């Protein structure tokens, strides 16, 4: 057993680092560093740069335009991106719908959609959750009724992340109301400009407009926009969820958050000394550091298993639970480290174009909002309680 990276892998890390130093626009880097919301344009600007480099879709096979990396390289790439304050690639097209189209889509769909995803021509959003279907995803009610060469779709989707920018949505709809729960579901690709679609913002407790409600009223969707067979939607959905969970530990982000926390705690004063020297605070930083060490090795174990062709199993649920808990703990520590400076809520700076002259105020502005935002980590992608039930059933056979 060895835990170190090979010389080739270390050289790859250097290559990624150099690329990020050169190619990540300074204004984008700075917005990410300060925890400010990026505009749709900024996201696309960065994703075009990645695409020009051939690195936009690390998970894609080479034949579709992926870089042909293995799991270790993808892990290194994620880590370096987080360390350099690069924006997270909007995952709905690249990491979520694309693998489904590759696996279940027909040739025509692959030819049409995959290049458009890679070239950032389409912005995808996810039509999964509904007001009555959260963790219990299979109880979706949005109805799709066949009418000649179309489905007529009516219903409501929610928690649609960045749906305000999207022109396409992949959607779970019920095509057969009489079939058993999972069996009556199909997977549709819906043009967001279709008549009958309304997108309404949901403002979350951090004051951000990240998620939306999407209302569908008699929306006509051509049947060629169905991926897979009618009734096969649940298979697509499950397939997609396993792809979603492979990098769910968010380890690169956790590492970056710990670095940020340490530098804050070294700089900020507490009773005349650097905060990091305060025993009770330091103890929590120490515990977070050790948890991160454990999580990193667990993550590498999963990556190594994936490299050998094993599907990520229970460990990915474990990573999701512990990874989200750690990131939440780090966001709590960061908020506390800021002390009274965590209180001002400068939303024009965080979510808009307002500027601040005071660098301390700018550095502190996102702390509390991010703490509240990070509560989502243990809820989305299958709430942590759901993850535990999955492990109990599938691994422990309880």
């Amino acid at each position, binding site marked *: *057993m*060895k*835990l*170190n*990276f*090979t010389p080739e*892998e270390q050289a790859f890390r250097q290559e990624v680092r150099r690329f990020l130093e050169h190619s990540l626009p300074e204004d984008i880097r700075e917005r990410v560093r300060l925890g400010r919301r990026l505009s749709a344009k900024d996201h696309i600007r960065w994703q075009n740069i990645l695409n020009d480099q051939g690195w936009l879709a690390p998970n894609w096979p080479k034949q579709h335009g992926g870089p042909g990396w293995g799991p*270790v390289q993808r892990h290194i790439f994620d880590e370096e991106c987080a360390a350099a304050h690069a924006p997270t690639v909007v995952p709905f097209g690249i990491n979520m719908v694309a693998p489904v189209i590759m696996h279940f889509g027909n040739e025509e769909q692959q030819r049409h959609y995959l290049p458009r995803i890679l070239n950032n021509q389409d912005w995808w959003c996810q039509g999964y959750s509904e007001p009555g279907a959260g963790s219990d995803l299979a109880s979706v009610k949005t109805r799709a009724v066949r009418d000649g060469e179309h489905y007529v779709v009516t219903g409501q989707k929610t928690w649609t992340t960045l749906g305000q920018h999207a022109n396409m949505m992949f959607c779970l709809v019920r095509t057969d109301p009489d079939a058993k729960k999972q069996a009556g579901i199909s997977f549709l690709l819906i043009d967001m400009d279709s008549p009958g679609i309304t997108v309404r913002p949901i403002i979350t407790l951090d004051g951000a407009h990240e998620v939306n409600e999407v209302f569908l009223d008699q929306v006509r969707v051509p049947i060629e926009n169905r991926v897979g067979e009618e009734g096969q939607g649940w298979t697509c959905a499950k397939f997609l969820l396993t792809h979603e969970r492979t990098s769910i530990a968010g380890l690169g982000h956790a*590492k970056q958050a*710990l*670095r940020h926390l*340490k*530098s804050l705690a*070294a700089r900020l004063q507490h009773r005349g000394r650097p905060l*990091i020297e305060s025993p009770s605070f*330091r*103890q929590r*930083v*120490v*515990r977070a*550091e*050790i*948890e*991160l*060490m*454990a*999580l990193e*090795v*667990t993550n*590498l*174990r999963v*990556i*190594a*298993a994936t490299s*050998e062709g094993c599907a990520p199993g*229970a*460990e990915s649920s*474990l990573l999701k*639970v*512990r990874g989200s808990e750690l990131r939440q703990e780090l966001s709590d520590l960061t908020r506390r480290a800021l002390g009274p400076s965590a209180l001002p809520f400068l939303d024009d700076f965080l979510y808009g174009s307002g500027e601040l002259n005071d660098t301390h105020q700018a550095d502190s502005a996102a702390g509390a909002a991010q703490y509240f935002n990070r509560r989502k980590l243990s809820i989305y992608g299958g709430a942590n*309680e759901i993850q*535990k*039930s999955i*492990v*109990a059933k599938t*691994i*422990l*056979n*309880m």
Partner: protein
Amino acid sequence: MDFSLSDEQRMLADTLNRLGIDRVSPEQRRQMLEAPAKGAASPLWQTFADLGLLHMPFSEAVGGLGGEGTDLMLIMQAFGRCLSPEPYLAGLVLPGKLLARLGDAEQQARWLIPLLEGKHQLALAWQETLARYDAHGITTTARRTNTGWEIEGSKQVVLNAAAAAGILVTARLDDGQLGVFIVQQGDVGVRYHDYLTIDDQPASDMTFDTVNLPFEACLSANAGEALDATLAIGRAALCAEALGAMEVACDQTLEYLKERKQFGTPLASFQSLQHRMVDMHLHLEQARSMTILASTCLEQPAEGRDYRIAAAKAYCGEAARFIAEQAIQLHGGMGMTEECYVSHYAKRLIMFDHYLGDTDHHLEYVSEHLSAVA
């Protein structure tokens, strides 16, 4: 990066697990614990010798098999799984590793070779009441005399002292350095108070009252670094032993939840118990990761090594306690009984924290060495 085992390692692990099942059943273990200690003459110890286990953790330079940290991990994990009563770590690895580093050719011939051949066992006396887990802050002294060395002081919880042909004793020298000396059974001025620890390990408190030793009893007059390296190996090995015990505690608890019915349904059907069981599993897997980290860092420079070892020992200490306490809780009243075998695992797992430094001790180490950057 490579987490796979070599073919030899897989064979080793299989052999050891079979050995545990065949030779250390709960009943066999009870008989071994109740019988008078046989030291190296114990049949199980002789089987270790036949299997090459006594040579495994030592370098080829001193006549060993050159096993790595991960080989030791597999051995200790298997011993943890069966709660092996043999003092593999205390009677072989710790004193042997220190001897291999410090002893001259004569001392190695006298003490190390017979150790590896299964002819005798040794012990390491490093711990003192006042210094707790600090191996350097000791008050036992060694003074040079015309005829050799004079030892004065005391040691606490010396595992395997009664069965050891020689005991390596640490002492503070006049120049402030740490020395290591070999004390033999029968040396004048040495007193033993023998007992079993609460998790069934034979141990002794020792006092040294003007003990005069010949020059050749001194292994080193500057042993600080060697002692640190040896204790690092011991800590990694303990993590592995605890890992094995955690695996079994989890397995037995899961099995019990599936078997035991209350309110007309298996306990395993209750969601609160399912999630608790998953939490145990989660601690187990994270402890496995930290044990791997500890076992693969032993060849690194002292600073990086000891940081990781401290982190691993602290982490495994907490995981072990969580799993032990939940194993008792989920077994209900049965978990409180001697008869229910999981209670023996729980005892080993709780007391794991008291060997070679507890969670607080190691958290403090990490805290003192916390780097400013991640």
